């Protein structure tokens, strides 16, 4: 009966066995249900994909061998699109029944195929105390006609971790558990994972049922979907319920009584629809702790990093790549390229990212490679990096920063052009404008602080007013000093004039009295005598040899003005002439007197 049930499952869900059997040469496997009831008989099948020369069965301790080993051979040939594939397998089948409740291990069996020995894996089978309602027990489930209870078939969403930090990957598995035969699914609604970055990592095309116990009951369980989830938000994130309608085959209520094994084939089955729901779950997502380093690129997990240049030495204008490799487990596919500062003279192109990660039940792991293509434009010795990469380490619960060492790059002179060109003089280089990279404020003033308290301005300060007062007072002082000096100078001239007048008046005193008495001859005699006396005193010449020529000569020596000399000489001549000439009358005498007066004054000054 068990055999028949299994056959039916195989009919329903496709030839799983064949797909498994398509393996490499010389494989030897074992297949048995993981969980059985105490009074249940089950099949244990060893399968080899080639004709073995010998088969060495293990000891079945804890189990009664009801039948076996029965060997069977199966071969198939497929031609798809002209491509021919062949498969061949030999299976040894035992029918076993457990003796007692517990976990039993059936040790490995071995075969020899083509002179080589192969062993199967040991298999552990759990024996539970049955309630006679095992999934495989078609007789019982078939009797549950009409209505199928929620206990007979249900779905469940399982998650690998209930509490994670943002960015930490977890695996969600949607499983179906059933005790009744399933004919198909309808209206399957898988959850959308809002707030997560999600990816299906297992989407079985053939649903494989494996026996599992749930609350001490045996179910056929199968994985429907497996997802890798990376939370992108924090808080309690809900995974929506998933839903589907199962088509379940149950026996029609008609008929009954004892049946032979073969009768099953002729029974009438009925398909009922049953809506099943996997309840929604909540996942607590904690925020990453604060204090992420600047080089944090979103990685959560456990990583290693290495950085290298594709070449150490290049010519200018030749391409070279900086390759940063990050490997490890975690959300590796979400890691962003690390930020690297290149010298400003380098031309940097878009980062090439190659992701060689695989998703396993533990999350993604693998290698991610960032390739920075760069072209150095000038020659020189450059030090790049160090490249820093920070991630949040889940096991130690803190940020870790990995750093590559300095990467040295020697850039030689641009060879440029062909050999014919290089022999001639180059035509100069292309001029470049000096590019502003960024704008920043100018630096602080570090010189004298010029710190002042209170009044900040010079203009109304005491010093200012004092300086102004100094300027003004200096002006007035200088002004009065200068005007006084001029005044004094003018006084000196006046004194001289007055003295000269006095001298002249004294000399001409007698002449004046003669003038008043109108004594003509006496006046001119006196005038002549006075002038000559004045000249002899003035020029220190003896009166005896005083002639007009002598007087003129000495006056010229004294650099007296020539018109004054002329005037003096003509006056002397006039006096000499008048002594021997009659009085012409009139104002002649007055005129000559004032002439003499003026002359003596002028000569004195």
């Amino acid at each position: 009966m068990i055999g028949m049930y299994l056959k039916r499952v195989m009919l329903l869900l496709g030839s799983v066995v064949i797909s498994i059997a398509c393996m490499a040469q010389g494989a030897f496997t074992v297949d048995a249900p993981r969980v059985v009831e105490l009074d249940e008989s089950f099949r244990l099948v060893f399968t080899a994909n080639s004709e073995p020369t010998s088969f060495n069965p293990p000891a079945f301790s804890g189990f009664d061998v009801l039948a076996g080993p029965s060997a069977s051979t199966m071969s198939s040939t497929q031609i798809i699109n002209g491509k021919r594939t062949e498969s061949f397998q030999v299976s040894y089948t035992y029918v076993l029944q457990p003796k007692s409740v517990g976990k039993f291990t059936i040790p490995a069996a071995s075969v020899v195929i083509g002179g080589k020995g192969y062993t199967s894996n040991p298999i552990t089978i759990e024996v539970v105390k049955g309630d006679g309602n095992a999934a495989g027990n078609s007789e019982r489930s078939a009797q549950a006609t009409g209505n199928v209870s929620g206990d007979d078939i249900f779905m469940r969403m399982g998650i690998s971790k209930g509490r994670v930090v943002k960015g930490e990957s977890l695996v969600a598995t949607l499983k179906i558990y059933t005790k009744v035969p399933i004919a198909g699914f309808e209206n399957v609604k898988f959850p959308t994972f809002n707030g997560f970055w999600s990816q299906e990592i297992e989407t079985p095309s053939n649903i494989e049922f494996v026996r599992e116990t749930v609350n001490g009951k045996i179910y056929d369980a199968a994985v429907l979907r497996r997802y890798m989830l990376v939370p992108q938000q924090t808080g309690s994130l809900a995974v929506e319920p998933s839903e589907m309608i199962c088509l379940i085959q149950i026996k029609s209520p008609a008929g009954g009584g004892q049946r032979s094994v073969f009768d099953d084939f002729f029974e009438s089955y009925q398909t009922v629809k049953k809506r099943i729901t996997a309840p929604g779950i909540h996942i607590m997502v904690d925020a990453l702790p604060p204090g992420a380093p600047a080089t944090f690129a979103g990685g959560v997990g456990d990583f290693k990093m290495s950085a290298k240049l594709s070449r150490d030495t290049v010519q200018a204008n030749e391409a070279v790549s900086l390759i940063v490799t990050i490997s490890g487990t975690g959300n590796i596919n979400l890691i962003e390229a690390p930020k690297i500062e290149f010298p400003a003279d380098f031309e940097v192109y878009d980062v090439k990212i190659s992701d060689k990660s695989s998703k396993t039940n533990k999350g993604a792991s693998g290698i991610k490679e960032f390739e920075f293509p760069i072209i150095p434009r000038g020659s020189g010795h450059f030090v790049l990096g160090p490249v820093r990469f920070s991630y949040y380490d889940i096991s130690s619960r803190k940020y870790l920063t990995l750093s590559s060492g300095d990467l040295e790059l020697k850039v030689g002179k641009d060879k440029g052009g062909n050999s014919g060109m290089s022999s001639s003089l180059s035509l100069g280089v292309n001029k470049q404008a000096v590019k502003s990279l960024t704008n920043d404020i100018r630096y602080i003033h570090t010189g004298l602080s010029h710190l002042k308290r209170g009044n900040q301005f010079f203009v109304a300060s005491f010093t200012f007013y004092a300086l102004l007062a100094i300027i003004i007072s200096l002006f007035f002082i200088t002004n009065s000093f200068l005007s006084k000096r001029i005044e004094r100078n003018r006084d000196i001239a006046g004194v001289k004039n007055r003295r000269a007048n006095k001298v002249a008046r004294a000399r001409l005193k007698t002449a004046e009295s003669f003038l008043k008495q109108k004594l003509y001859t006496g006046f001119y005699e006196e005038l002549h005598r006075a002038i000559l006396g004045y000249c002899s005193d003035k020029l220190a010449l003896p009166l005896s040899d005083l002639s007009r020529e002598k007087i003129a000569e000495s006056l010229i020596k004294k650099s007296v003005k020539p018109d004054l000399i002329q005037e003096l000489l003509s006056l002397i001549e006039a006096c000499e002439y008048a002594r021997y000439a009659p009085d012409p009358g009139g104002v002649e005498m007055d005129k000559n007197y004032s002439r003499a007066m003026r002359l003596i004054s002028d000569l004195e000054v």
Partner: protein
Amino acid sequence: MKRAIFLFYFCVVLSSMNAQTPKELWASANNLYSKAQYADALQGYLKIEESGYASESLFYNLGNCYFKLNEIGKSILYYEKALKLNPSNEDLLNNLSLAKDFSLDKIEEVPDFILKTWIENINYSFSSDTWSYFALIFFAATAFLLLNFRFGSSSRLRKISFFLAIASVLLGLLAGYFSLIQRYRYTLKNTAIVMKPVSTVRSSPDDSGKSLFILHEGTKLELLEEIGDWKRIELADGRQGWITSLDIEVI
């Protein structure tokens, strides 16, 4: 007795802590700034300012610190303060225009009469102190030329001196005027900067007034009058309204 001794020690410790002279504070703050420890440098500069000192360089450095700490409003405030002390500093004008690029509000300024703008430009091409030195030099020149005019030996020299003296005294008065007007504007305290990221300008000096417009951090305002905690302000484009004193800081 013990308590008294303790108090005495406490005072001594306090005074020794405060004993840093402004010069030392200045040097240490400059040093911190050069190590990119802007917050610590800022504390140093603020301590100098608290002790009553002011200078164009101090305000300029304070503005730089605030800029580096991303407090654009404060940064503009201190640049404007420094600008009032010396409107001709190139570094200052450069940094201020950079800081203004980060403030949100774009206000179309009403253009002034062209002659007024020219005179302002001439005025702001030197600091108040420079103008006052000019004034003194011109006055001294005037005095010299007047003396020349009075006691010059030739009439030609006296004539030239006279006209030059008139020109010089006019220039001296102008320089003095520029210098004084800059000083006057510094003491006026009639402009302010918006300090809050978002601030509402209302039609009346209370919270019930209608919201006329929204201003953002770093915008310059002219203050017209004050009622309680509210200030009547005018924007460069001529719009007026009332803003609460808490949102602004006077330059």
